């Protein structure tokens, strides 16, 4: 079974959404899934015939909690699944809690009344076509979200499983909210790896749930597991007096989740550099240049497509230091541009996170001032070749260049239709570079810059100087050491 077919089965709608998503279904998860699924269905599918329904729920000790929910806390209107319509409601923790309890109560009612079908209605986000750019430059979902109903026992064993997965996640989220603890998506997965099969199942349903309520994932008390690394001369000060110094670590620190009360001190920083790949991040942080570079620079990698926590962190930095230059270094290929797009405009899949920015301004995540440091077409095709040594030149610049795959070409063509890259859109340079890739049928990884004299770190250092030269010293601190007084 290929992964697309599996996704189709899991989620009941095509997973051909544009592949900002690709990174989520990464290889290891896929492997795990094949391993679990290729042979025979997991046991929970076998036991989900209708007459075993009560047994399934009774087996689960947590399911008994459902009985404890009283009628009192529930407002009739909350049972509707149209949170965005109607008079504005303040969507806080208690509101989400009440919505979840409403959902659970309906299921309990269904069980008590011996209804044949139990249902949970979810709003699912549509693919690219359903997205529009808003005025502030972020993506937001088009006004209509697709409703989908997950039934139990449903028509198929898969549907019964979906219902079980969803119910379990709802329960865990409820527990997290009720006890005011924060769960990571990874935590949720590891509660029942055999049930959830793979991490992306959890990711998807948690996001669907947030979308259904029209809130950000953080309001569900769920975070992505920390995967981003940061390094540089910054300090995070907590309200409780604790502090984290970025400069102390030789290899970068895992990006901490910031609380609203945390203050990030970037007063020594002139530049924020985002790097697509961990290997390049390590190459810079481990280089001899880092001692000087690191004192003026904050470097972050989210190891591929950025998760919400990385984007929230960067957004918080921009809000605090709006004039601090921020650049991104990605591969010269369609995925590199898509990753940059996710940093700058947000994820297609998580567009509902941007939409809620109206309610909670601090979560408006686009980074409109993000500039593209590289890798650009003029940085790859023009390695100096002397007129006399043409043959040698051809070989030297062939290194690090690769042909586009068919998938790359299809993706690049699809991206030319994105509202950001279309003719007259806000990113004419992205459009040009995508077209240049297609014309030359070439791509390059950022490792190509390692071949510059002095390596990647030295190249970055030069670029930083150039940036400082162009922008002047727009950041808070005084440019020359010694003149501070």
């Amino acid at each position: 079974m290929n992964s697309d077919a599996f996704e189709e089965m899991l989620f009941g709608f095509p997973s051909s959404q544009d592949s900002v998503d690709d990174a989520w279904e990464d290889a290891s998860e896929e492997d795990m899934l094949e391993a679990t699924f290729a042979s025979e269905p997991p046991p929970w599918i076998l036991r989900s015939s209708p007459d075993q329904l009560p047994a399934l729920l009774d087996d689960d000790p947590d399911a008994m909690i459902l009985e404890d929910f009283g009628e009192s806390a529930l407002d009739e209107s909350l049972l509707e699944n149209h949170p965005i319509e109607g008079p504005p409601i303040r969507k806080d923790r208690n509101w989400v809690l009440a919505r979840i309890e409403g959902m659970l109560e309906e299921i309990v009612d269904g069980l008590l009344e011996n209804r044949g079908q139990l249902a949970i209605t979810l709003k699912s986000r549509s693919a690219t076509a359903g997205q529009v750019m808003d005025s502030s430059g972020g993506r937001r979902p088009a006004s209509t979200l697709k409703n989908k109903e997950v039934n139990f026992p449903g028509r198929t064993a898969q549907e019964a499983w979906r219902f079980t997965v969803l119910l379990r996640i709802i329960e865990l989220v409820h527990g997290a909210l009720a006890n005011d603890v924060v769960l990571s998506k990874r935590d949720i997965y590891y509660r029942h790896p055999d049930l959830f099969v793979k991490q992306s199942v959890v990711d998807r349903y948690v996001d669907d749930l947030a979308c259904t309520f029209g809130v950000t994932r953080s309001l569900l008390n769920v975070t992505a597991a920390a995967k981003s690394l940061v390094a540089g001369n910054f300090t995070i000060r907590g309200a409780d007096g604790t502090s984290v110094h970025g400069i102390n670590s030789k290899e970068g620190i895992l990006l901490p989740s910031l609380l609203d009360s945390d203050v990030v001190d970037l007063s020594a920083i002139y530049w924020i550099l985002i790097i697509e790949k961990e290997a390049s991040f390590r190459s810079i942080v481990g280089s001899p240049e880092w001692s000087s570079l690191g004192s003026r620079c904050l470097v972050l990698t989210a190891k591929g497509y950025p998760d919400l926590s990385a984007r929230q962190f960067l957004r918080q930095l921009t809000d605090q230091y709006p004039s601090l230059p921020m650049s991104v270094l990605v591969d010269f290929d369609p995925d590199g541009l898509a990753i940059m797009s996710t940093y700058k405009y947000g994820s297609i899949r998580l567009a509902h996170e941007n939409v809620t920015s109206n309610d909670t301004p601090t979560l408006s995540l686009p980074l409109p001032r993000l500039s593209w440091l590289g890798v650009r077409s003029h940085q790859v095709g023009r390695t100096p070749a002397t007129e006399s040594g043409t043959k040698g030149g051809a070989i030297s610049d062939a290194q690090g260049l690769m042909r586009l795959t068919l998938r790359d070409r299809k993706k690049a063509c699809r991206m030319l239709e994105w509202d950001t890259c279309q003719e007259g859109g806000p990113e004419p340079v992205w459009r040009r570079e995508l077209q240049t890739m297609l014309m030359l049928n070439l791509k390059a990884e950022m490792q190509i810059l390692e071949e510059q004299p002095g390596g990647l770190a030295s190249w970055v250092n030069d670029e930083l100087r150039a940036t400082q030269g162009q922008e002047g010293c727009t950041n808070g601190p005084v440019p020359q050491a010694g003149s501070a007084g």
Partner: protein
Amino acid sequence: MSKQYLTLHTLDGAHPSDIFALAPTKTQILSASGSSSIRIHDTTQTDFPLVQTLEGAHKLGIHHLATSKEGKTAASAGFEGVVKIWTLGEDALWSGKGDIVDQHNPGDIWAIAVSADGNYLASSSINGKVNVWSLAEKDTMPKIREYETKGSFGLCVDLSADGKFTASGHENGSVYIFNNDTGRLSHSLPGLVHPIRAVAFSPASKLLAAAGDSRIIALYDVTSGEQVANLTGHGGWVLSLDWSDTGEYLLSSSHDSKAKIWRIETKQCVATHSQGDRPLWAARWLPRATRSEMFALAGGNQAISFYREAAG
């Protein structure tokens, strides 16, 4: 012995995007870019005025554009995978005649060339296939030849002026000449190893020039398939090739913003022009009118520059 060419005129901002293709007729030059429109400038007037814009021809941008030598048929290929055929009306305006969509694999057509009489179109494709289409009929544009190659991306294609041959250049360095009369491969030419980005038949269909990332321009004898010369001197990937009307000179342009003119008789580069710091995607001679020889260059700087031979 070098030759002098002077800048005659530059159309700055001819397109709002990188210009990927130029296609001249006797009186006009058509140009296409990463934007959706084809622009047509009059080459008979000293200021080269814009006379027509084919708006929204290809929404995702246009990568190839070709005209027939008789000047009444043009074809454009867009990133969305469609090839559009255009014809010149009695009113001297271009209008769309129809689309060619490869039935089997829409979007696979890449480079295109139009025969001198405007009756045929040759196309290369991502999967290496080379096809010839008939444009002569009024309503349909059927595929009349389908040449298989070893599957390497066909980056460039040309039709000989006499209509007898189709040539294709491929990413793996292969160059093929097909005989359109027999529908068979004539020659698989000793390759240049690196991607071939331009192929061009000489006006008398005797020679084929091929070039690309090896920075060498190879000349082949079309009849025998023998390689007869190497023109060396480009420091960047060669992106475009064009023969002058008489076949005396070959014009080439490269990724490192240089254009060169080669005298075929001596196999020497007789002139080099540098234009900006962006790739020169297209270099084309203008069909010889009364004036001295002229050529046009365009590329990443979004301008079209016209040059003419210095008098004397």
